[in-house]
């Protein structure tokens, strides 16, 4: 069992942070890698990229948005409760290199995944500009941590309630126009990663994205996580989760992410109805 030692609610309770005891995973995990978690005997296996790992205390931290029944169940777990299963570290670690000027772009809970990568980019000597966005000010997460992890933090909100009024891509374009950017890392909702990649392609700047397709095992055994990259089928859990953003077929990914939408909605609604009745 994997005990929760710290729990925080963010973004008005729509985003949850769990720090979990998992010493074997904490020992080996690198930025960019993910774990699969399951709560309860009949729970679903949910992949989440790690936001922090603490080797000394043997813990890993995940930050997730509550979107369906499984994450509702995760949300109910309090400090002292446990996940039934945590498997990892899975996937390839981020390829880190000293390149010079780098932009890290994050949206939604993607910011959590971006954080360890941003910090590592800075630690190996890159000049890191970080651009993070959310729909509105109250939904923004990890502003403080991202400030620390980068040299220059820019914040955007869709409704203008905080920072730049508009999308992360607007600000990114400005930074790109100043020139000399060696790499962009973009992590967030698929449409955001797609928009970022379209722009960086024009500027010819290599771009790394982290994909989150539906997974089952996370070990290359089922093929449920297939994505098309440069016209070839890849298994995101073992070949990724990070890929060359200019080569990813985002439209296919968006459609594949909706495979169980109807089922999930029904399951989630049923669950909430029963819970609220109680």
């Amino acid at each position: 069992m994997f005990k929760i030692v710290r729990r925080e609610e963010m973004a008005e309770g729509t985003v949850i942070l769990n720090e979990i005891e998992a010493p074997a995973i904490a020992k080996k995990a690198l930025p960019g890698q993910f774990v699969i978690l399951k709560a309860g005997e009949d729970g679903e296996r949910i992949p989440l990229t790690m936001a922090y790992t603490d080797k000394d205390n043997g813990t890993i931290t995940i930050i997730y948005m509550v979107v369906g029944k499984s994450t509702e169940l995760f949300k109910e777990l309090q400090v002292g409760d446990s996940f039934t299963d945590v498997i990892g570290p899975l996937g390839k670690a981020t390829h880190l290199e000293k390149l010079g000027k780098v932009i890290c772009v994050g949206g939604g809970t993607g910011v959590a995944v971006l954080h360890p990568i941003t910090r590592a980019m800075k630690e190996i000597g890159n000049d890191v500009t970080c651009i993070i966005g959310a729909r509105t000010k109250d939904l923004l997460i990890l502003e403080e941590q991202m400030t620390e992890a980068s040299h220059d933090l820019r914040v955007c909100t869709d409704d203008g309630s905080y920072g730049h009024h508009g999308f992360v891509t607007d600000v990114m374009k400005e930074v790109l126009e100043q020139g000399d950017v060696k790499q962009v890392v973009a992590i967030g909702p698929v449409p955001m990663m797609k928009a970022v990649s379209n722009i960086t392609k024009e500027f010819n700047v290599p771009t790394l994205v982290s994909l989150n397709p539906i997974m089952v095992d996370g070990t290359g055994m089922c093929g449920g996580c297939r994505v098309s990259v440069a016209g070839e089928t890849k298994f995101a859990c073992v070949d990724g989760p990070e890929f060359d953003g200019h080569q990813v077929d985002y439209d296919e990914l968006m459609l594949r992410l909706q495979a169980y939408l109807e089922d999930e909605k029904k399951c989630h609604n049923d669950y909430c109805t029963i819970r609220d009745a109680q």
Partner: protein
Amino acid sequence: MAEKAKKNPRVAMPEQDPQVRARNFLEVPTGYTPKMAQEEAARCLQCKKPACVAGCPVEVDIPGFIDLISQGDITAAIRNLWTKNALPAVCGRVCPQEIQCEGKCIVGKKGEPVAIGNLERFCADYERENGTGELPPKAEATGKKVAVVGSGPSGLTVAGDLILKGHDVTILEAFHKPGGVLVYGIPEFRLPKDIVAQEVNFLERLGVKLECNAVVGRTVSLDELFEEGYDAIYVGVGAGLPRFMNLPGENLVGILSANEYLTRANLMKAYKFPEVDTPIPMGKNVVVLGAGNVAMDAARTAMRLGAENVRVVYRRSREEMPARQAEIHHAEEEGIEMYLLTNPTQYLGNEKGRLTGMECLKMELGEPDDSGRRRPVPIEGSEFHLECDLCIVAVGSGANPLLTSETPDMKLNQWGYVMTEEHSGKTTKKGVWAGGDIVTGAATVILAMGAGREAANSIHDYLTLGW
């Protein structure tokens, strides 16, 4: 003799009615009663040179255990079986007996062979339901530690053998539940999961330690296991890499590998969704590509999940279908249609990226190929459309590189399978053995167990005598 065989037919095992079972997940054959078992056992001629034993990959003493059933001593019969086969409840259900023991049985030359598999299953079930559960004696502790990677039939055999020889055994399994293909692949209606769980529990009671959620190659490497103090390692990770057809449109929603489909249905129990949290696509018109056991299992699962029709599409003819005859027969009884000599050429989808059908070509048999089988060749202009909203790809599996790519000093063959010494299972890496599907490619439960037994003997020699 022919007369005798007719007069003396095989005792049929009672089965659920096809109409009823096609919509439930309960086991199909319901088992012999003791009386039926004794009647069937009496059909055995007790040959001096039993051909059946030569047909069994682990040389079960078939006339021996059958004679004990005739005498009514089931307790002795199961103990006889256990000396050669640690999982008789499993093998009695899933072994391809028609090409192994039963295929060689003399009675079968003129009539139906003795129902060896059914009798094996009977003994194991009888013991499980009526036995004392008494544990076999264990040798004195040796103080040597063995890690078994993978908890499929191969790993379970190694663990069972070595714990009895007095070693300290830990199984490391990537999934959250032990059993390998026995739990994630083979469906409940063919192999109830309680049986597998009891077999694993038996090993735990003997002292085998079980660590699930341990992905060796990621969570821990083989070298780190040695650093942790293990003296020997057995690698039995199976052939878990799904093959696809590489046809246009393969990433449409509604196309799953059999591995994914069966894992959702079996391991994650998605057939109970939304009672459990993992969903599974409910196809109305289902196509299964391939014709092995895996394809039959997928097709029969789809039928049970409420499909209106399920079609197995296979490019060769009935004779070449690799599935066990019993499974093909069961599938057809349940209403699954066989589209033989049919080759899919592309998947068709709608604007939402969902599968709507496939295009296929009719084939005919041409000249024999390298394997001696007549090669299917397309019939020109025979394209036709098959409407479907779910397609399960069951065209085989390959070697999963997750562990092997992290272990460069363990040599692989050109297909990525681990190279081992014959009859010992030793790999090129010191202190490491391998066996089962990761060595042979997708094969059978009994071959994986046989390899496990040979490796266990070799590991024991190593731990007591040296490499």
